[in-house]
C-alpha cells in the first residue's frame, strides 16, 4: 500500500523545516519536497494523536529514509498497539527493513518492544522465530554488536542458556573464525552468566580444554586468552593460575631467553609471557617477572612499552 491509497483531504500538512523558524538557525537541512510532504503529514497526525493505517504507511516511508528517526519508530509502535495489529506480521515487516539496511540498529530495540507486547497480550512467542534473521545478519557481519546483544537478550528472556542451538551456533561461528571475539563473549555469557547456578567442575574443565585447543590454532589470538583469564581469575571458581605453567611454556620457552642461553628461545605468544610473569610473581620470583616485562616492552610487544613498564614498576614497588 502507498500514500495514494488513502485520502488526505481532511488534514492540512504542517510546514516543515529542519531547524528553528526564527531565521537565525544552524544546520538547516534542505529537505526534498517529498520528505517535506510526508513529514508534514506525519507531524500533523502525531499532534492529532491519530493512530491509523494511513499514518502507518507514512512511518514506513520515513524509517526507510531515516533509520535513526526514533520518534517515528515510537509512533509506529504506538499505532501497532492501538490498532491491535498482528504482531507477527509486524515482526516480518521489521525483518525486511533489517535486511535492507544492515546498519539500522533501531530495529533490534523495536523487535524487543514487539515481542514484549506479544507476550503481554498472552501470546506464546516462539523464540525460534528469531533465528533465521539473527543468523543472516551475523552471517553478513559476524561481529555486529547490536545483533549479538539482541541474541543475548533473547537467551535471557526465554531462558535459552541450555538450548543446544546456542552452543551449536557459537561453535559454528568459532569454527569459521576463531578470532571472533563477539562469539567468545557470547560463549562466556552462555556458560558463566550470573544466572547459571550449576557451573560444575566439569564445565570449567571442558571450557579450559576448549580454550587451550583454540589457543593452539593461533597462539597470538587475544580472544581465547581473555576467555581463559576470565575463567582463572573468577574467584568463585577457585582455580590456581600456576596450573597453567606447563601449557604456557609451550608458547614461551622462556628459560632459554632468561638464561641468555645459546638455544634460540621459542616465543610465539605475548599472552603466555604475560601470564608467566604473573605466575612467577605469585611464586615470589619477581626477578623473573621483571625480566619478562622487559622482554615484552623491548622486544615482543613494544607498542605497549609503557604498560609493561607500569606492570614491572608495580612489582618493584611491592
Amino acid at each position, binding site marked *: 500500500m502507498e500514500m495514494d491509497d488513502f485520502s488526505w483531504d481532511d488534514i492540512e500538512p504542517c510546514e516543515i523545516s529542519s531547524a528553528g*523558524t526564527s531565521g537565525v538557525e544552524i544546520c538547516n537541512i534542505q529537505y526534498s519536497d517529498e520528505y517535506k510532504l510526508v513529514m508534514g503529514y506525519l507531524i500533523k497526525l502525531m499532534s492529532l494523536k491519530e493512530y491509523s493505517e494511513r499514518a502507518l504507511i507514512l512511518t514506513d516511508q520515513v524509517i526507510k529514509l531515516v533509520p535513526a528517526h526514533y520518534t517515528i519508530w515510537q509512533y509506529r509502535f504506538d499505532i501497532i498497539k492501538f490498532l491491535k495489529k498482528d504482531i507477527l506480521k509486524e515482526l516480518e515487516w521489521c525483518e525486511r527493513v533489517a535486511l535492507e539496511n544492515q546498519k539500522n540498529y533501531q530495529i533490534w530495540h523495536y523487535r524487543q518492544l514487539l515481542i514484549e507486547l506479544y507476550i503481554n497480550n498472552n501470546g506464546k512467542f516462539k523464540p525460534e522465530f528469531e533465528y533465521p534473521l539473527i543468523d543472516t545478519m551475523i552471517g553478513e557481519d559476524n561481529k555486529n554488536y547490536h545483533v*549479538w546483544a539482541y541474541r543475548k537478550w533473547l537467551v535471557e528472556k526465554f531462558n535459552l542458556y541450555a538450548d543446544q542451538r546456542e552452543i551449536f551456533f557459537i561453535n559454528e561461528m568459532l569454527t569459521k573464525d576463531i578470532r571472533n571475539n563477539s562469539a567468545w563473549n557470547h560463549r562466556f555469557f552462555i556458560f558463566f552468566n550470573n544466572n547459571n547456578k550449576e557451573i560444575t567442575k566439569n564445565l570449567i574443565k571442558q571450557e579450559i580444554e576448549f580454550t587451550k585447543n583454540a589457543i593452539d590454532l593461533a597462539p597470538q589470538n587475544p580472544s581465547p586468552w*581473555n576467555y581463559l583469564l576470565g575463567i582463572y581469575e573468577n574467584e568463585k571458581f577457585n582455580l590456581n593460575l600456576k596450573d597453567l605453567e606447563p601449557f604456557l611454556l609451550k608458547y614461551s620457552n622462556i628459560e632459554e631467553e632468561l638464561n641468555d642461553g645459546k638455544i634460540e628461545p621459542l616465543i610465539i605468544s605475548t599472552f603466555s609471557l604475560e601470564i608467566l610473569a604473573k605466575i612467577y610473581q605469585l611464586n615470589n620470583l619477581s626477578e623473573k617477572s621483571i625480566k619478562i616485562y622487559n622482554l615484552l616492552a623491548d622486544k615482543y610487544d613494544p607498542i605497549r612499552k609503557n604498560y609493561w613498564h607500569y606492570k614491572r614498576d608495580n612489582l618493584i614497588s611491592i
Partner: protein
Amino acid sequence: MAYGATSGAASVAKLDFLLNLIGKTDISMMERDNFVQDNYKSINFDTLIEMLDKETVLKDSLVTKTSIDQDNTENLVREIYEKVLEKGEPLPTLKKKAHLKFLNYVISSPLPEGYTVLDASHPWLIYWCCNSIKMLDQDLTLETKRAISNTVLSFVNTETGGIGGGLNQLGHIAATYASVCSLALSEDEESWLKIDRKSIYNWIMNHLKQPDGSFIMSIGGEKDTRAVYCTLCVASLLNIITPELIENTANWLSSCQTFEGGFAGTPQDEAHGGYTFCAVASFCILGEPSMILPKYCNLDSLIRWTCMRQYQLEGGLSGRTNKLVDGCYSHWVGSIVPFLEMTIKGVNKELISRAALQNYILNCCQLENESGGLRDKPGKSVDFYHTNYVLCGLSILQHKYFFNSNLDKGTIDSAAYCYNCNTINNLNIIEIKSENQLNSIDPIFGLPLGIANSMKDFFVNLDS
C-alpha cells in the same frame, strides 16, 4: 635531546631498517651520521620506525576473516607510513585550515538534502562541528552563538519533556546531552536561562530512570551505559543532579564490566570502547578517579583492556578485541587513559604510546589531498562525527591531566569539575609542534576545558 639513532642498540637496528627501506644499505659512517642529523630527530619519527620495524615480531599463520581484515588495514597503513618515512622529516602535520573550512561550511550554510539521514541528529551535528572549531582555536561568531541557542531551544519537547533530535521530535537523552553541550559552547547565558531545568529533571526521574539505577534513552527507548553517561552529564551541567537521581547508578555501571575488563552497553554484552568511556566518565562524575574507579571496577583488567586497544603497526586504537583500529576510538578509548593515569600510583606515569597514536591520527585519519575533515581509517571518507572524536583524541593525548581537589564546588558531582591540564612538554613522550596543537578539552564532558565549569557555576550561583 638524546634521541638519535646512535643512542642504543635498538635504535641502530631501527636505523638499519630505515636505510634498508629507502634503499641506502651501502653508505659510509659519515653519510650515516649526516643522515641521522637530517632525518632522525623526533620521537614521532623514531616511534614510526619502531611501529613498522617490530610489526611482525609475533604473527600467527592461521588465516580467518579477522586476520584478512586486519592484514588489509595494515597494508593500507603500512603504505602510508613507508611513504612518510621515505620523505623523512618533517612529518605531516594537522591541516588546521582545511579542517576549519570543512567545519565552517556546515555552520554557515544550509545543508544539502543528503543530510536528511541525520534528521534525528541535529544537536549532534551542531555539537560535533562547534566543538571541533573551538578545539582548532577559532572563536564562534556572535551570530553563530545566537543561531546555536535559537536552534537548540526549538528542539525542546514541551509536551513530554527533554530535548529532541530536531523540531517536533520526542525528548531523547543523547540529543539532550548534545544540545546542552551546544548551549554550553554558545556561551549564551541568556539562553541558558530559557532551559526549563525542572521539566528536564522530572522527565529524567519520571520516565528515564530505572529501578536498577540505569536510564533509558527516551520514553520507550533502550537502556545502556550511553544513556547513563548522557543523563549524568546533562543533570550535572544543569545542576539538577540529586542523590535520588544517582541512586544505584554506580552499581549498575559496575555490572557492565565484562571478564575482558572493558565495559559493555548492558550487562554481559561485549566490552566496547564507546561504552567503556561512558562508564568510566560516569564514575568520574560521581567521584575522584583514584577513589571511585578502584571501588566500582576491576582496575587491573580495565587498565589491561584499555592498553590492549593500541596496535603495533597502526598505532591507533581499536574499540574491541580483534577489531580494527578506528580514529574515533582515539577519543572513546584514548580519553579513558587520563582517568587511569590519575588513578595509578606515581606521577608522570604513562600507559599508552601517545606518539604512536598521534602518528596514526596525523598520517591515517587525514585525507591524502588537501581537503579537510577526519576519518576512521585510510579508504574511508570523512564525516563530522569522526572529525570531532579524532580531534578530541588528539587533544587528550597532547595534554596531561591533574585532579585538583581545590576546585571542589561542594556539590555531589563536584569531582567532575576538578580537572586541570598541562600541555605535555616532554620530547621523550611526544613531539611538540605548534601546527599540531589543539586546545585542551574536558575529559568528562568532551567540551573545551573550562566551558563545562562556566555552565555549572552559572547554575550553582543561580540556585544558591
